[in-house]
């Protein structure tokens, strides 16, 4: 069974009065377990809207969205919050950590909202931080960490609930190339460990890390093709 199944997803925004903007014009997409998908597209292509819908931050105007076989397209706010908490791990471009909380508390937060007991919470958060290579930084506040380290905390926060998908929105956008590569290597590792990863980006070389690329243009899927091998891909872009 697919983790994510989108059928004819349409999203319109009211811009006041009778004016409407069609952000998504009928998107159908299926993503299976342990896939590593990049969603690409120029700005205005609707990729942010699609990401928000996949991430259950927003609901489609029409169309069907099934998450692990459950229809989430008509869920209320609180049910969506539960899905986000249990099933989705977000990684943002700007990290979006709570600035006044240390790394440990940031990673614990989704477990707090998930109602996990405090001892288990702490243990799992420590394990996950250790897993992303920050076992020695657990009591640092975000402003005491480098950009790469902050993003690792964010990845740990996304991972800690053992979600069905990890949804990363331009995860390397605020990082230098080297640190960006390190984060991408981390994603590669997480993918090998069985996680399903959806990467939203407009950078082709970042999208290359994925195993399948979905290109959006003007609110529709333009292409949806697997990335064969790195070498082939490099040759293709060179030609």
């Amino acid at each position: 069974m697919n983790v994510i199944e989108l059928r004819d997803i349409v999203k319109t925004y009211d811009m006041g009065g009778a004016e409407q903007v069609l952000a998504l014009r009928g998107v159908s997409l299926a993503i299976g377990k342990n896939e590593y998908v990049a969603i690409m597209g120029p700005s205005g292509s609707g990729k942010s809207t699609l990401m928000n819908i996949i991430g259950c931050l927003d609901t489609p105007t029409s169309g069907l969205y099934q998450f692990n076989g459950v229809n989430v397209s008509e869920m209320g706010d609180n049910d969506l919050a539960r899905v986000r908490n249990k099933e989705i791990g977000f990684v943002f471009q700007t990290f979006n950590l709570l600035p006044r909380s240390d790394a440990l508390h940031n990673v614990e937060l989704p477990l707090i909202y998930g109602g996990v007991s405090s001892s288990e919470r702490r243990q799992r958060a420590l394990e996950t931080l250790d897993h992303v290579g920050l076992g020695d930084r657990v009591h640092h506040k975000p402003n005491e960490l480098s950009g790469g380290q902050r993003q690792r905390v964010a990845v740990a926060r996304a991972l800690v609930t053992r979600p069905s998908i990890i949804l990363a929105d331009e995860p390397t956008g605020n990082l230098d190339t080297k640190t960006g590569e390190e984060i991408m290597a981390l994603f590669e590792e997480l993918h090998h460990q069985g996680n399903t990863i959806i990467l939203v980006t407009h950078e082709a070389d970042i999208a290359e890390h994925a195993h399948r690329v979905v290109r959006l243009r003007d609110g529709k899927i333009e292409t949806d093709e697997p990335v064969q091998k790195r070498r082939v891909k490099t040759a293709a872009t060179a030609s």
Partner: protein
Amino acid sequence: MYLLTELKEGLLISFRAVRANKMRSVLTTLGIVIGIVSVTLMSTAIEGVNRAFARSAAAFGTDVLYIQRFPWVGNEDWALIRNRRMLETNFAAKIERQSQFSDAVAPVVGTRRRVNLGDLSMEDAFVSGTTYQYMNAAGVTLADGRFFTAEESSGGRPVCTIGANVAETLFPREDPIGKVIRVGGYPYTVLGVFEKQGGLFGVFTSDNRVFIPLLSFESHFGGRRRDVTIQVRVADIQQMEDAKLELEGIMRKLRHIAPGKKSDFSINQQELLTETFAPISLTIASIGLFITGLSLFVGGIGIMNIMFVSVTERTKEIGIRKAIGARQRTILLQFLVEAAALCLIGGIIGLMIAFPLSLIVDQVLPTAMPLSVVFISITISLLVGVVSGFLPAYRAAKMDPVEALRYE
């Protein structure tokens, strides 16, 4: 248990938020502090006035009737009653002979005189002339010594029984019994001291009084043209009304008032005062608490205002929390806890300031901050926090996560 975790998290967040915005938190809390201080002080003062009144009224005795020229309260036209005839002291003995319901009857006349012992003096002490029956006719108790006897009373002996304040003023260190003091310049031997009654400025109580035999009073200070009060103690408190009717009849006969004509005297009792005072006290309390409540209300608006600012400032944070699974209730609770915590801190500080101030109030009025006021103010400050925090918290809870995350 889940709710408890959320509450704990909410408290932690508010603690961090307060620490991060110290000045702002202090200023906002100040509104609540002032509100709680004024409300608690006002209720303490009201409590004080009520207690003072209760004590003063108690000094009259619930079972004592006062036959006087004028009524204590009432709306009779002053022009009609101001020419009433004086009462006479010898009515007391006549009433005592004729009355069935009364236990003891004593006439009391009064004046104000300097009372002194050497250099120690009380300038405007109330000097009352009465008979030995006074002890039975008034609801007073002796702390020490005795009242004058029937013989001393009828003999017009220069003896006196003094109030607690008089004793304290003239005899700061020694036992007053047996000592000779000067009342209006004349020597009197102190026989006894009354128990302290307290009360509103000591006006109606025995505290500032010196009691001397009626005959001594008349010979030293003159008995003519003085208002006489005849105090009648009713034997059975259940028969107060019957006693009043009987006394009215006796008095009318003594004064030869024709049937159909109005009585030219008044029969007063403590109940009249308490009945009159109760609605006045209630009105003062309501108005006072309403006005001071306004300051608490303003404090609440301050909290609401700052919570709106806080919610706007932390839009991004709200977005993050929602993205990782905070439900509306969780966000609502978080901000409610923050507002309530701010107000609670304000309330507690307010109480800590109000308590010593209430001790100052206690110097003027016999009062103490009632324990109920402590609990009520804590509850009220929590309530103010929850009420004024609700709108901002609701706005935060209802935020669209996508919009909130985009906020910079």
